[in-house]
């Protein structure tokens, strides 16, 4: 199965390990990824607020790049996914906007017709690989590993886009974790906000909010957290030392990108998945799973 692949900015900078892991896991899954190298940023939350026209143009250009290849588009970032979905929705419902953007894309011989299907890696696992095939592909079940799924916001809200009355009812990551052999926990932070989008000008909000979530995951017995969004990862992992200082206690909770968790169960090594590139040591997660798995086997 071939996909146009949009890694976004974070997976090419502060979370480069996510891009590496995604490519390696995709090969194991039989996904052929065509990385869209000329794709720009989707504008995060800032562009859409202060320059909607520019926001639509950049996002629809990314959709047009995928459409030119006649491929569905795979994303690995919550915020990019929502931006692309929102831009697509605006394009198909506003003819004047659609025409205006296509005029801007014309010098590049690009044109969007509204046919690109946007799918986050999490959804690709279910829709294109399937639960049954995924079970077959698991060579190293992560038995004994207790994980806390941290969805973040833009993969489960707003309701007008995703349709949940209560976004806490999303259980896609927990169900996946079970397929991979882990034990998912229920905790208060699952679908809460990490505060990333204001962190560039004021980190205190992100530190306070995410501190509560990591604490709740740790109290719930999680060995690790797993997130489908590199922006959440940046706060959960990258800010964890500052969060510990703010809380006045040690946390030391490893945070995995979703493709890394899948990769471990598919038999990739922590090194292949770049687990050594995290701020909070994460390679130990692989051993936690295997150690407990071995103990369970003995029992």
């Amino acid at each position, binding site marked *: 199965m071939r996909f146009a692949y949009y890694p976004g*900015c*974070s997976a090419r*900078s*502060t*979370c480069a390990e996510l891009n590496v892991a995604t490519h390696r896991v995709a090969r194991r899954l039989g996904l052929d990824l065509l990385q869209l190298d*000329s794709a*720009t940023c989707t504008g*995060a*939350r*800032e562009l859409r*607020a*202060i*320059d909607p026209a*520019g926001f639509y*143009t*950049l996002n629809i*250009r990314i959709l047009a790049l995928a459409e030119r290849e*006649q491929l*569905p588009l795979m994303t690995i970032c919550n915020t990019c996914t929502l931006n692309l*979905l*929102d831009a697509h*929705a605006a394009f*198909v419902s506003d003819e004047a906007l659609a025409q205006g953007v296509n005029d*801007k894309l014309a*010098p*590049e011989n690009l044109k969007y017709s509204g*046919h*690109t*299907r946007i799918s986050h890696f999490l*959804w690709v696992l*279910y*829709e294109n690989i399937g639960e049954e095939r995924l079970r077959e592909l698991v060579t190293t079940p992560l038995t004994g590993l207790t994980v806390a799924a941290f969805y973040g*916001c*833009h993969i489960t809200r*707003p309701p*007008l*886009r*995703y*349709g*949940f009355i*209560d976004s806490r*009812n*999303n*259980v*896609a990551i927990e*169900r996946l974790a079970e397929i991979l052999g882990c034990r998912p926990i229920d905790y208060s932070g699952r679908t*809460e*906000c990490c*505060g*990333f989008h*204001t962190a*560039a*000008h004021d980190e205190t*909000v992100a530190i*306070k*909010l995410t501190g509560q979530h990591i604490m709740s995951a740790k109290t719930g017995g999680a060995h690790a957290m797993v997130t489908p969004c590199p922006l959440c990862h940046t706060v959960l992992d990258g800010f964890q*030392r*500052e969060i510990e200082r703010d809380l006045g206690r040690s946390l030391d909770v490893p945070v995995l990108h979703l493709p890394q968790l899948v990769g471990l169960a598919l038999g990739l090594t922590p090194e292949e998945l770049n687990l050594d*590139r995290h*701020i909070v040591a994460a390679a130990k997660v692989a051993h936690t799973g295997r150690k407990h798995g071995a103990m369970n086997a003995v029992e």
Partner: protein
Amino acid sequence: MTLQIQISPRDGASRIGQAERNDSLVARNSRVEPGTNIVVRIRRQEHDTGHYDTFSVPYRKWMRVLDALEWIAENKAPDLAYRWICGSKMCGTCAVRMNGREVLACWEAVEPEMTIEPLRNLPVIRDLVVDRRPFEDRVAGLEPWIERPSAYAGFPEPLSHKQMKDASKALDCIGCMCCYSACPVIGLGSLTDFAGPAPLVQLGQTALDPRNSPAKIARSLALTGIFNCVSCYKCEEVCPAAIPIVSRVIEPLKAKAALLLPERARHARAMRRIVAERGRVDPGALILSVQGLRALLRLPRIIRLLLRGKISPLRTIFRIKTAATEPARRLLGREASQ
């Protein structure tokens, strides 16, 4: 290869959990059989101390949270404090938290087991009744009215749907405070000066009206701390009036703030400038641009990020181009704005 037009990922994997967790109006209304009882835990509070009382309530078909409260007040706890006026989703006075989610008691189907609590982020007067004063004071402080930049030309004063498209969404607000209770930034108290979703929606009713003067709008927006909104959409999720609070009120207000109060929009403007110049976000350039030398206070983290290869000073200093640079410059740069 033919692909279907996707309006929204309303099917498939993006909705996993919806069916098994009864996340639809039909499922919610058919969970309890008439003749059975539901369990209702209510937070009781007077002054600073509180506790929970549990009641068993006979279920009636189409029973709402408000009906359960009424039954409890009439049969078991005549001193239960709760508030409602219209009972039909118009007055916005009956909002409570049910199983951790803000709902209008008059509009929400009961659940087989439910915990009812007062709204968060407002002082509790008694039981489920909160003091709306902090919200009302904040709104009044924002001066939510129109000041015309020129004299009133007289009636009729035609306004197009397009001119009013965002203000009209804000005008759907019933002032129920669900969003104010759900907002995580408001939950952090005085940590920021963020006004919160409900006051911003109230302000949007006039600040997004084309008849209002830019000077007036700027004066109000300066008091909102609007760039502290984390864009989590918790407000949209609980809004009983289905107002797209983030995308149709807060973001249009941010656009006005970026224009009228550019210094407040440093982060957003820096982000746009970097994307326009480079095509992608360079986190180093963004942080330096927004925080200036303050960024150096984070030296331990900078070292940690450098050691893990997560930031590249060379990329920041030499503004290294990528394949995305030229398209971004053409579409967002000077050329695009001419």
